[in-house]
Each structure stands twice: as C-alpha cells, then as structure tokens.
C-alpha cells in the first residue's frame, strides 16, 4: 500500500466544507418579522397592550397560526419562537427545496443568469432592498402567498384585503451566515 498521507489524496481528506446536510437535507433559515403585532405577547399594536409574556404558546395564537400556515407548503426543520428580545419576529428553518423557493430575474429580487444577487443591498452591503412588489415571482412565493392569505384574507396580488390581525406588513429575510451568527440578510419579501 503506498503512503498517501502527504499527497493530494491525503490532503483532500483534511479539508472542510461548510454544509447543512448533516443528518438533514439542505436547510434554509428564514426570519419573519411583523409590523404592528407583538407575537410574544400575542397582541396587535392597534389594541391596548396586554402584558402576557409567552402568550405565543397559547392555542390559536397568531404564532401558532403562522406555523400551521407555513407548514402547508414548507417542511420545517426548526421553529424558533418570539422572545422578549425580539417580540415581533422569529426564525425558522425549512428544507431548501420546499416552499417553492424560486430565484427570479424579475422584479427587484434580482438574480442574474449566473445566480449573482444584484440587488442594491447586495452590491453595496448597506441599505435595504426595495420591497418586493408582485411581479410574478418572488424568492419564496408559496410562503408569501400563504402569509397574505392568513394576514389579509387575500393573496399577494390583492393588497386590499381586510387586515384581520392589525398587521401593517411583514418581512421575510433569508438568514445570512455571518460567522458570528445567522442574521437576517437577503430580503425575500
């Protein structure tokens, strides 16, 4: 048996590649944030504030409804919860190939043919993407569509539905691996 430790074969075994596929499929981490609704206390900003920490664990809390709504189209691998630190948002992880994850070259969710994100925010590293507006395709179309149906009894092409929960709007961010943590990055909606 030849000695292979110091040749390229051996060297290749001592490399490490980042991966999310240990025991699971490839995962996407997403942060959802609501404007005007405190998920942690489960109360809309339009109502009198009710100090009831952890109310998101109650039956039929909006948090519970969001999870069930998203589960209609995405396969969850992690569900985070709102907290006193971040009462308006939480993170979740889904299998990357679920949720109708589409990279589009339309609208301002701007990937070119090489898959390079050309949004302003990706280019200068600062600022915020222009908001996605219905353009026929989004980053994670099914999730946005389901959330619209939940929040506004509408769909993403009808912005005039009733505001059921007193939510002004919502955000979806794909979490960016910063090395120090996974933080909201690419604006999906």
């Amino acid at each position, binding site marked *: 048996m030849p000695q292979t430790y110091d040749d390229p074969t051996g060297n290749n075994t001592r490399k490490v590649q980042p991966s999310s596929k240990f025991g699971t499929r490839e995962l996407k981490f997403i942060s959802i*944030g609501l404007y005007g609704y405190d998920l942690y206390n489960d109360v809309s900003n339009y109502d009198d504030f009710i100090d009831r920490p952890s109310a998101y664990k109650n039956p039929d809390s909006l948090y519970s409804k969001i*999870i069930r709504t998203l589960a209609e189209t995405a396969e969850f691998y992690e569900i985070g919860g709102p907290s006193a*630190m971040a009462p308006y948002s*939480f993170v979740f992880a889904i299998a990357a190939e679920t949720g109708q994850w589409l990279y589009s070259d339309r609208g301002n969710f701007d990937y070119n043919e090489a898959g390079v994100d050309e949004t302003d925010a990706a280019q200068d590293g600062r600022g915020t993407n222009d908001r996605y507006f219905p353009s026929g395709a989004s980053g994670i179309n099914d999730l946005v569509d389901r959330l619209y149906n939940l929040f506004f009894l509408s769909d993403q092409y009808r912005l005039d539905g009733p505001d059921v929960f007193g939510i002004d709007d919502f955000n979806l961010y794909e979490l*960016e691996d*910063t090395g*120090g943590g996974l933080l909201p*990055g690419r604006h999906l909606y």
Partner: protein
Amino acid sequence: MPDLTKNQDGSTSDLALNYRKTRETTNLGTRKLAFYTCLFYGADLVASKDDSNGTYSQLVQTLQQAGAEIYWLGQPHNLNETFIRNWDYLNFYERGDTNAPEAFVFAIPDDADSPITRPYDSENPYATLEATITNDYDPNWISFNGNFFSSHVYTGMPIVFSGTTFGGIVAGKTYYIKEHELDGPNLQLRLSETADSEVLDIQNPKEIGGEPGPLFELTNGSGSMTARIDWLDAIYQGTAGDYISGCCADMTYPGVAAAGFINAIYNRFGPGPYWVERCAPSFGIFPAYWAN
C-alpha cells in the same frame, strides 16, 4: 367516536385547543440542535478555508474530537466584513475593524442537562441594597441606592426583599427582574412575580431566573427596604459544557460560553484569544448578549 374538537354546547374543547398550540423546536427531522459560534482572534480561518489542514479544518476536527456531532457547519467569516445588512447596533464589529475576530457557526445535538449553580464570587455570594419606591412619578419602578455587582444585573434574575416592605411587596418572596435601567449610578427595576424558565432556550434557566412574566404593579408606598440578589453561575453537563457566567452577564441577556469546546481548543492551539459562545434564537441566531 365523540367529537373531540367541540364540547356539547358547541364551544371549542380543551383537547382541540391543545392541538392548536405551537412551541419552538428543532426536533423536526433531526435531533434537538444547539447553535454555537466559534470566534478566533488573529487567526486565518477565512484565508485557510479551503486549505488542507488549515486552521478552519483543524478547529472543526478539534470540536469533533471533543465529542461534537456537527449537524450544521457554517463558513468562516471575518466579523468586520460587509454583510447584507448593517449590524452595528448589535455588539457586533464595525466594517474594517482590524480587531474583529474570524468566526464560524456550527450546530450540534443539544445535550445540555439541568445545570448546577454556584456563587460567582464565593466570598461575596450576594449583594444587598436599600430600595425605595416613587410610584407617583413613573409607576412601578423601584429605585436603589447603588447598583448590584456593578452592572451585572440581567433580565429574569431573582430578587428577594426583606425587612419592612411596602408597595405590595412580600418579604421573603422571590421576584424576577423584568426591566432595569440606571439613573446615574443607581439601579432602577421593574419586577414580575413569575418567570418562564424555558423561553429562551437555556439562556434563562430557572435556577438563575427565567424570562420574566407580567409586570408586578406596585401599590403606593414609600420608605426603605432591603433587597438581595444572588450572583450565580450555571454550569451544564453535556458535550459543549455550557456555562452561564455571572462574570460576563451584562444588563440584559447573559452569555453562555461553551467551556468544553473552549478547553478542547486550548488543548489543540494553546492559549490564545478565542471563544465559543452559544447562540440564542430571536430574529436571528446569534449570541444573545450581543443585543445588550
């Protein structure tokens, strides 16, 4: 088969209500996971990312040899890099900061067991202060004549009053810090009577507090009473050796160091500025003390 979703009067049954609850979890398709960030100052993690036996590769091996079953492995970054969004308002690092560490995120099955607690400073295991209430100006705040343990008071920490109490506070009962602020050198607190020990993962174990419940409303009253806070470390069994240290807890959320991993890195690399910190899920997954 009876209808389990409704009671006879048509109202929703408790059974149905229970199944419409949701709790945070990572046990979906995998084991319960805990995320950590490994911070290394003055290293070449980024430059050596693709190198055979590079520092990044050696660090990951070191963690695995310390018992870590890695379920998620992130890419190394220098924390002074330009990311999609600006995180300067966290205790992050500014762009181009030459003192910023290089770091990567990883996840392992979470086997942190019930912690044991011990005083951070055995010679000074607790501190007491005199407290007063000025309820008419800003309701439900208690003012103290100084600050406990410098600024090391965090949300959810237990506090017990003794002596002649007022404002509706019961002597000997444990309250939990809900909000805190400094008025010059003096600490001001709002309290809760309850705390949830499971909300922020292991960040707020019940042994040293928890996520505070609803605000405790003080009745009018004034005077002076004695308050005591125990300054405790919490040490977990488990692969990572999670360690909530009173020494580094700041005003809001305590840090959780992975002492087992830090020791393993010490054994491989010797003394050096590095750190492994447990992440807490919030609007992202990062060390909670960064939000202090």
